[in-house]
Structure formats: C-alpha cells, structure tokens
C-alpha cells in the first residue's frame, strides 16, 4: 500500500537527532541500544535478509522437490537466461510499465482536479473529502472482487448502463478480451488510487500562501494562468512525492490483478508481481521467481534514486 511510504518519504530529510543527550552517562550505552536493537533486528530479518537471499536464490536451481530434499544447487546464470528468454516475462515487463504509467496518470489528473475542487469552501466539502477515502481504505482484494462483478460481461452493471444508454453497441468484454483487460485493470486501479492522490495534493494546496493567488489576481492573471504559473510550481515537491510513492506501490501490483483477472485472459494482464508469484508459488521454481523479483527491485531502485535526487534539489532550494 502506498501509504506506508508516505511518512517515510521525507522524514529522512529532517536533520538527524541531536547528539547532546546521547553521550552522558545515565542508563549507559547498552540500555539505549536496547530501545533500538529489536526493531533493527526485525527489519534486518524481514527486509534485509530477503533482499540478500533473493539475489542468492536467483542463481540456484529450485524444483518442486527442493523442500523435501533440501537441495538447491547453484546453476550460474541458468535462471536468468530462462526468464529473459521467456515471452511471459517480457510481456509482463511491458504490461507492468503500461499499467503503472496509465494508473499514475489517471490517479494524478483526477486526484489533482478533485483536490483543486475541494479547496473551494462550501458545505459538505470536508464530509465529502472524508467519505471519498473509503475506496482506498477497503482491502484491495475486496474492491477488486467487487469490480470483477461490476465489469462482468453478461451480468455486470457497467455493461447494463452502457448498453442502456446506447453508449456501447453490445456488452463490452472488459475482463474477457485480451485487448481490453489491461485497460480495465488500470481503470480499477485509478479508482482505488484517486483518494490517496487527492488527500496528499489537497494538503499541498493548503500550504500555498493565499496572498500569492491574490497577488497573481491583482496582476491580472486568470484562473488557469494562476494555476499554471503559481499553483503548479509551488506544488512541485508534493507532486514528486505523490508520483514516486504511487510508482513504488503500483509497480509491484499483485492483489488487484490476481483477484480481477488472475493474469489472464491469455496472460494479457501478467505483471512482474504476478509472474514472480506464479513462478515461485505455483511452479515452485523459486530461483526463477527470484530473478523476476530482482528485476522488480531494480526498477523500483532506479525510480527511488531519481526521487531522492529530485527531493534533495527541492529541499536544497527551499532552505
């Protein structure tokens, strides 16, 4: 989920803890480390170990019998070659990028529009913003299952509405046509992501001093001009945060796809996440699963670096 990263994203840019209380006697060094050590050990076990282990696993040969025999011999680049020559992998890489780009674009544009709209003062504004969070708070598997019913070709309400209003000549095969299924998955994910984008961007909009808008208005700038020349530039740091956090949570998508299409039809919605799952936990080839997992990490890492850089630039300028 996206939110995990939210708080994390910028706290690191705060100044480090002061050293003044640290050094002096009372309690001693050992007791002080007792506060921190359990969490550090836990993170090493649940994040550090898997990272290292995945790299090792990607060079090992796992078979369905590995967990009985305990043998997983090293096999060099065998897994990497097998995965990279598999059209399922190359297809999933492409789907992942399309899915991520489409989702981010939709979530961001609609989220920003709603954030701007709800910045106006009117009755129900606060209430509506709160209620709109609901889609984001419901478990993703659950919303995906609900959408699976909504998008059902024969009994889904979306097709009932579309054909009823003569917007579609016949029932749209939302989830059953390989050409449409990825688009449907994007649609659902946009719906899920709108609240998160809206709330963060709304928060960013509130931080922009109102006199700036008034000054722009005095200078004769229209609403659109003010938005483009004043609001958007001021909002840039927040936009970076939203997009990068959105990227990191979208690129690893798994729940939504499994519950909505199970990767089908004809593997048209397989992503890096679902392929990792399929290789490791369905075919029990954990070595090849690890390869795809490593690719997923590499893609995330590239964006994380871009993010940290962009952020540093922003904060450097702000000071």
């Amino acid at each position, binding site marked *: 989920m996206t939110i995990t990263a939210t708080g994390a994203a910028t706290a*690191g840019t705060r100044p480090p803890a002061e050293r003044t209380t640290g050094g002096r006697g009372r309690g001693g060094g050992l007791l002080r480390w007792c506060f921190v050590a359990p969490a550090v050990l*836990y993170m090493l076990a*649940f994040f550090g170990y898997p990272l290292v282990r995945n790299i090792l696993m990607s060079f090992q040969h796992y078979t369905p019998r590995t967990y009985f025999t305990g043998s997983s011999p090293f096999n060099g680049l065998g897994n990497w070659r097998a995965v990279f020559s598999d059209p399922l992998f190359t297809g999933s890489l492409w789907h992942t990028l399309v899915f991520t780009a489409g989702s981010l674009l939709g979530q961001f544009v609609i989220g920003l529009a709603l954030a701007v709209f709800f910045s106006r003062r009117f009755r129900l504004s606060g209430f509506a913003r709160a209620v709109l969070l609901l889609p984001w708070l419901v478990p993703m598997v*659950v919303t995906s299952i609900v959408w699976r019913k909504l998008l059902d070709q024969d009994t889904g309400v979306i097709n009932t509405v579309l054909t009823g209003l003569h917007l579609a000549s016949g029932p749209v095969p939302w989830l059953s046509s390989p050409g449409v299924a990825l688009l449907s998955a994007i649609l659902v994910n946009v719906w899920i992501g709108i609240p998160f984008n809206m709330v963060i961007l709304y928060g960013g909009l509130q931080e922009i001093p109102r006199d700036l808008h008034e000054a722009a208005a005095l200078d004769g700038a229209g609403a659109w001009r003010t938005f483009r020349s004043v609001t958007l530039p001021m909002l840039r740091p927040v936009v970076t945060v939203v997009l990068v956090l959105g990227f*990191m949570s979208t690129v690893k998508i798994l729940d939504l796809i499994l519950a909505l299409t199970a990767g089908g039809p004809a593997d048209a919605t397989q992503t890096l996440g679902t392929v990792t799952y399929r290789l490791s*936990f369905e075919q029990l080839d954990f070595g090849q699963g690890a390869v795809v997992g490593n690719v997923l990490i590499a893609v995330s890492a590239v964006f994380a670096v871009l993010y940290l850089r962009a952020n540093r630039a922003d904060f450097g300028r702000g000071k």
Partner: protein
Amino acid sequence: MRHTSAPRRHGNTVIAVVILVILLFPLYWMVNIALQPGEGLASTDWFPVDAGLGNFRRALSSQGGSLATSLVVALGAVVVCLALAAPAAYGLARFGLRGSRTIVFGTLITQMVPGIVVANALYSAYVDLHLVNSVLGLILADASLGLPFSLVLLRAFMVSIPREVVEAALVDGANRFTAFVRIVLPMSRNALITSGLFTFLFAWSDFMFALTLNTTDDVKPVTLSMYEYIGAHVSDWGAVMATAVVSAVPAAILLVLAQKYVAAGISGGSVK
C-alpha cells in the same frame, strides 16, 4: 480569501454530490447486491427494495472463522509493530546513537522492497522455522507492513517532545526506560493511535503474505478466503458481496471514529 456567492456555493455542493455518487457507486453496488435475496442475480435491482439479511447470514456462517482469523492477525500485528517501533523511534529521536541516520535511511529504503520479494525469500526461512501455516508467522510478517511507517511517524513526533520534560523525570531518579513508559508514551498518544490504526488496516488488508505463507487451510484470513472462493466458479455473489461488506467494516469504522488520525497518517510528514 475570496468570497463566493451563495448560489455558487450551492453549485459546488451539487457538483460534490455528483462526484460522490460516481466514485462511491461501486461500493454502493456491493452493498446493494449483498442486501438482495436470490442467489442467481442474473439481473440486480437498482435498489434493495426487498432487502434481507440472508446473504449476511450465509456469509457469516461460512466466513465467520476467516473474519476472526483476520481480526486476531491484525491485532497481533499492531502489538508487535508498536512494541518494536515505539522504543526504537524514541531511541532514534533522542539518544544520538551512532548510526541513527543510517537506520532511518534504511527504514526508508525498506519501502522499496516489494512484498512478493520478501515472501519469495521468507517462505523457505518460514519452512525451516515451522512458521508456515501459523498465526504467529502471519502476525510477524504482517507487522512488517506497518513497521517502517510507524517508526518514521513516531520518530517525527517524538523529536518534538520537549527535552526538559524527560530530563526532569531523569533528575527525579527515573531511568530511561521508566521515563519512556511514564512520560514519552502517554505524550505520544496521538501518534501511537495513528500508527496502530494504519498497521491494523495494512494487516487486515494483507493478501500477499496470507496467500504465500499458508499452504493449508489452517490459517485463512478473510482476504484469502474470498479470493479462493471466487477462484472457484462463483454462483453465490450475494454471499460474496456480504462478506465484502463485512470486510470493509473496519475501514468504515475508522473513517467515522478516527478521521482525524487517518488524515494525519496520510499526510504523515510527507507534505511539509
């Protein structure tokens, strides 16, 4: 501030209602199907005119156990997460330990590690440790969903607690641990509630660890149970939607009772 005229404000309210109707329609439809009797549902009425709770009864009788499992796992994850995060957050905020920066940076980096990668490696370790198919194993794994978030949020909060308050307690003879429990924790109440709420939601929503770290039917949270149910051919959409409604209840309760904390968690320092 610009003064908007009354008609325009009413216009905005109308637009807001239209937005709500469109965006919340899927959830309305979930409730609508859940309330309508009849298993086939070739055509669903627009409104649950003859609403009944039959679907909910069937859902609870078949999914009750899974809901209980979800509840136990989510509460367990909250306990583990806060027990680890709160002291660590304080230590990192105040003790000036060597390596604090590295630890905070490492915590940020963990956000980049996709859950499926963790599961991929964790599975074999869990097999060795006999944690597969256990509630404890799932609790430990789910705590990882909330820990980085909680650690960073709590640390940001604890940095702002006035130093003098804790120093005074230390002068009065308390050691660091009692000062932490008696002074710092109560003062951090709001941040603890926010962290706990979100960890609960993350764990309650968890599907991936439930799916990968369980190979039998022993431990089955409601997300996994619903997924397996729709994997088979679905005929009883009424019961599926009733389960979906029940599984969405924690989110709804949070929204009503803890809106302030939810909002704080989402902005959680990201927009500063």
